[in-house]
């Protein structure tokens, strides 16, 4: 006797709503959202390269805020879209295995590509959603490396899926959504809603998911974004990601013996915070835009970064390495490409929105540059070194 799982047959699914006409329409929007996520994700990885072969532009200052906000928002929009899409095609999971070696091989390959597509899509949305809320339920793998790698897998599987389904997609868009030509033979029972209303529900759900979370990065929607990871409040009116306590810098940041070290070759200049405050002060309105998708604009005051480099006669076009007081962590040391170091808007900030920089924002001094991921806007700066 063999135990068998009571799996349903494809023919047992009778709802007219589970139709390629619906799947193609939801799938098209989902495909566009995946493309947006992929492109904005690539931009984010480009922005984080220490020494990009093609320089990442410093303008517009709000560029990264928009692309990364779009990345996370579009990813959230994918959740309802993917769930409905999978619902419409779920019966295909139980499709009978075809006879004949050639058809069997083709079907197996196609179903393997679908398996990879579904698995990578769920993986990307689940890990991305968790990361945006700073939740790391996995033990060992690196979110950044893995999310980047699986993005290529997902887009590759999506291209294969489009190639396979192109005739069906064309036929679906060439006919009315209620057309039954593409339906499975058993899909004849009307659903509780029409196909149009199933599509409308999907768009409504997507819209609600976006509006409920996008206040993270669109300030005027904060009031209604009841599910956004951050309300937007924080010291100086701006949220934080890593506190001074977590970075283990409370003592060193507040110490009277704090000195900023500027290094160019064998030249070194030591500055106290008072020395920095005695230099020409500039003020720039720049956003802090985090990889997790939240962002906020602030008016930062402090010393122009280029003015500091001039103190050690650093030539224009020089790359710079910035070190933080924090004793450990992947972002203790960051590379500032020359175009950012030379940009007039790049500051070593000492104040935010008219207040002294809060310890959690990087007191005594932090980097703030235009169009740069927040994780690279180094806080508690202790050393600025020209690396040629």
């Amino acid at each position: 006797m063999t135990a068998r799982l009571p799996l349903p047959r494809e023919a047992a699914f009778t709802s007219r709503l589970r139709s390629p006409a619906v799947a193609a329409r939801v799938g098209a929007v989902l495909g566009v959202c995946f493309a947006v996520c992929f492109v904005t994700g690539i931009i984010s990885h480009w922005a984080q390269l220490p020494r990009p072969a093609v320089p990442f532009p410093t303008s517009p200052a709000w560029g990264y805020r928009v692309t990364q906000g779009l990345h996370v928002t579009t990813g959230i929009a994918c959740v309802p879209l993917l769930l409905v899409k999978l619902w419409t095609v779920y019966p295909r999971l139980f499709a009978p295995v075809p006879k004949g070696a050639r058809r069997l091989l083709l079907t197996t390959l196609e179903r393997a590509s679908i398996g990879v597509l579904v698995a990578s899509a769920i993986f990307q949305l689940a890990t991305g959603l968790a990361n945006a809320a700073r939740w790391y339920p996995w033990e060992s793998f690196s979110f950044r490396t893995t999310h980047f790698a699986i993005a290529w897998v997902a887009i590759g599987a999506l291209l294969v899926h489009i190639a396979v389904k192109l005739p069906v997609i064309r036929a679906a868009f060439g006919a009315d959504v209620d057309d039954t030509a593409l339906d499975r033979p058993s899909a004849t029972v009307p659903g509780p809603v029409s196909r149009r209303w199933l599509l409308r529900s999907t768009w409504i759900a997507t819209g609600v998911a976006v509006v409920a979370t996008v206040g993270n990065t669109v300030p005027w929607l904060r009031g209604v974004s009841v599910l956004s990871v951050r309300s937007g409040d924080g010291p100086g009116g701006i949220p934080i990601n890593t506190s001074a306590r977590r970075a283990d810098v409370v003592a060193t940041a507040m110490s009277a013996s704090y000195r900023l070290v500027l290094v160019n070759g064998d030249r070194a200049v030591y500055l106290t915070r008072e020395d920095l405050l005695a230099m020409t002060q500039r003020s720039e309105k720049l956003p802090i835009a985090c990889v997790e998708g939240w962002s906020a604009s602030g008016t930062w005051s402090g010393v122009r970064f280029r003015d500091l480099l001039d103190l050690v006669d650093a030539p224009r076009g020089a790359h710079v390495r910035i070190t933080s007081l924090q004793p450990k962590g992947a972002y203790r040391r960051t590379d500032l490409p020359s175009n950012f170091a030379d940009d007039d808007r790049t500051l070593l900030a000492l104040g935010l929105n008219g207040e002294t920089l809060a310890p959690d924002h990087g007191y005594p001094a932090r980097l703030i540059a235009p169009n740069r991921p927040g994780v690279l806007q180094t806080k508690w700066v202790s050393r600025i070194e020209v690396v040629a």
Partner: protein
Amino acid sequence: MMPLRVLLGALGVAVGLYGAWLLLDRQETVQVVEVAVWFLVGVLVHDAVVAPLALLAGAALPRLLPVAARGPAVVGLVVVTTVTVVAIPVLGRFGALPDNLTLLDRPYVAGWAVLVGLIAAAAAAVAVRNVRQASSAAGGPQA
């Protein structure tokens, strides 16, 4: 169309293999194994838990509601369930840090409840209207 499809498919395979190489090349075996586990568990959770639950809901609906109320109920359920999936990380506040008060700093359960309440109220209002219209079209309630 066939050459285009072949080209697209070949490009897809190449892009996907590049991703697989990125995954395998840049991480330790133990990390890749965990990714593989997550990969499979994600599909299993959908195919063996989420989808059957949706099937159950679809089967229960006609037993619980009159015909005229089913449409709005489905629309409401699609919106509520999918938005709730989006809300899982903030509802659980799994990433909250004691030293960071700017993170996960909203009353998420209350906000979610209000959202669900609004959607349910809208669906109920349409359902009531539909039921009334259906009964008046049928000549009103039978005496």
